[in-house]
């Protein structure tokens, strides 16, 4: 689905490279997680894919097409995004989700746009929220509305930048389950960044460990080892297995 090859990015002409030749593949229905310290280049990578900034070198192919040559509107029909901290403006939940249809309707929503929103709301059990002011909802509910808005774009790939960063455990679980459901049921590729390694192990299929603008290691859960985590985060962790599931414990220090 998405193939990133030798992607490089620097903010100014002679500034150091923030992304130093990223290679990445993700298929439909897969959930890929980008893991790394703050400043490793995760958000910069996402911004490049979203077209918010232009790569200094490299290619991003999406279903065989050069993503960098697509207009914002065409790209929005393929890739949707959910930032870490969400602000919507004081709109109703229904209108907030309908906003996700902008790339499809142009200037004013038509019948098919309203039908799409109604389907998504039904699917995600959001009907009772329709007329509520989205700014008055809880953090988890707002995050769920952001997922609904992203789905309204009818995308083939979702990019979530630390979606559970500001949430309590219950809401974290809500978002994790919603993300999994979306990927599996709708066969949508999800690229996500998370700080919680255990959450990443629980949710994701592919792991990309990033450090200083490079991918240190990538693969399935098997590559999640104490060595690679310690190297990525300059940390000291231990991995134990409980009921067949990996559990990362931070021992502190180096």
């Amino acid at each position, binding site marked *: 689905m998405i193939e990133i090859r030798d992607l490089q990015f620097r903010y100014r002409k002679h500034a150091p490279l923030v992304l130093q030749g990223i290679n990445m593949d993700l298929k439909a229905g897969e959930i890929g997680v980008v893991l790394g310290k703050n400043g490793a280049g995760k958000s910069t990578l996402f*911004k490049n894919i*979203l*077209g*918010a900034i232009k790569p200094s070198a490299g290619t991003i192919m999406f279903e065989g097409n050069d993503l960098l040559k697509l*207009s*914002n*509107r*065409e*790209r*929005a*029909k393929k*890739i*949707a*995004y959910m*930032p870490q901290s*969400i*602000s*919507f*403006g*004081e*709109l*109703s939940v229904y*209108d907030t989700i309908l*906003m*996700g249809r*902008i*790339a499809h*309707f142009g*200037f*004013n*929503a038509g019948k098919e746009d309203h039908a799409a929103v109604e389907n998504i709301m039904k699917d995600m059990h959001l009907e009772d929220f329709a007329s509520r*002011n989205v700014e008055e909802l809880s953090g988890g509910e707002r995050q769920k509305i952001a997922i609904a*808005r992203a789905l309204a*774009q009818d995308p083939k790939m979702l*990019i979530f930048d630390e979606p559970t960063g500001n949430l309590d455990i219950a809401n974290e679980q809500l978002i994790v389950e919603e993300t999994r459901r979306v990927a599996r049921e709708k066969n949508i590729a999800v690229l996500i960044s998370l700080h919680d390694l255990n959450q990443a192990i629980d949710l994701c299929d592919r792991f990309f460990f990033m450090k200083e603008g490079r991918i240190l290691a990538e693969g399935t859960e098997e590559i999640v080892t104490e060595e690679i985590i310690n190297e990525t985060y300059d940390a000291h962790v231990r991995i134990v297995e409980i009921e067949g599931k990996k559990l990362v414990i931070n021992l502190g220090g180096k």
Partner: protein
Amino acid sequence: MSIGDAFAALAHKGTAAQNRIIWNIRIPRVLAAIIAGAGLSISGLIMQTNLNNPMASPSTLGVSNAAVFGANLSIIAFSGGFLDTGHNVASYGVGANPFATSLMAFIFATLSILVILGLCRVRSFHPGVVVLAGIAIGAVWTAATTILQFYATDVGISAAVIWNFGDLGRATYQTDLIMAVTVLIGAIYFMIMSWRFNALLSGDISAKSMGVDVNNLRFISMLLASLITAVCVSFLGIIGFVGIICPHIVKKLLGQDHRYAVPASILSGSILLLLADTFSRGIGSGSALPVGAITSLLGAPFFIAVIFSKKGRMQ
């Protein structure tokens, strides 16, 4: 003139003087209040959304400061005037082209807009950069005006200061038409783009990810909003606060959805300026007080009531 006389004059059934007062003075003035109020209010709304800044106003790009410099240059350096307000020094600028000052004001206001938007187009369209560039360029125009006024004669400086007071009495059918066309073009564009302005409320990256061409939207809408302001200020002088107060009242009462906020801002701006002008003529015992001061006097208490009310409480 009594209300009955006014209605008779509206139907061309008053005395010749009454008909002239209503049709040549009052109606152009009322139209100017409706059009300029709408234009300044809608420009303020669009600036606030574009710059994600509640303090943004129609003059954020230094438009008013530049217009003041242009007008001062015309009045002080070229003795040109647009001073048929009844307050001016009667002999000053006699024989000058009545549009000279407005034209100079508009030229400098447009120059200011183009310099800032041009710089931002080349370097960065980050809202913070635009606001700072506006403040910097505005300061340059203010400094230039101060230097100009330092060398002005007493008559020149008083004429220039009087120009700065917003005065709807300068409006004619011709100026109303020019303002109306500019405001209409802006209003149509802002209405068409209302969903995209809604998307901007989620931030630039989110808006782009939803398919909005953020840079183009910001460039065109700020250009239109600033041109509307430039035209209104050039013809009428500075009318402050309408562009800040009305969009805020609308957003507090109706929310931020631009499908409603754009028409509601148009309506509230027109109503506020019309009320302010009526009030300014009512309490001025024969001579109208500066309408810009009245908009603030009338609007500010209402504004404070709205922001502290339950419905509109600031978070």
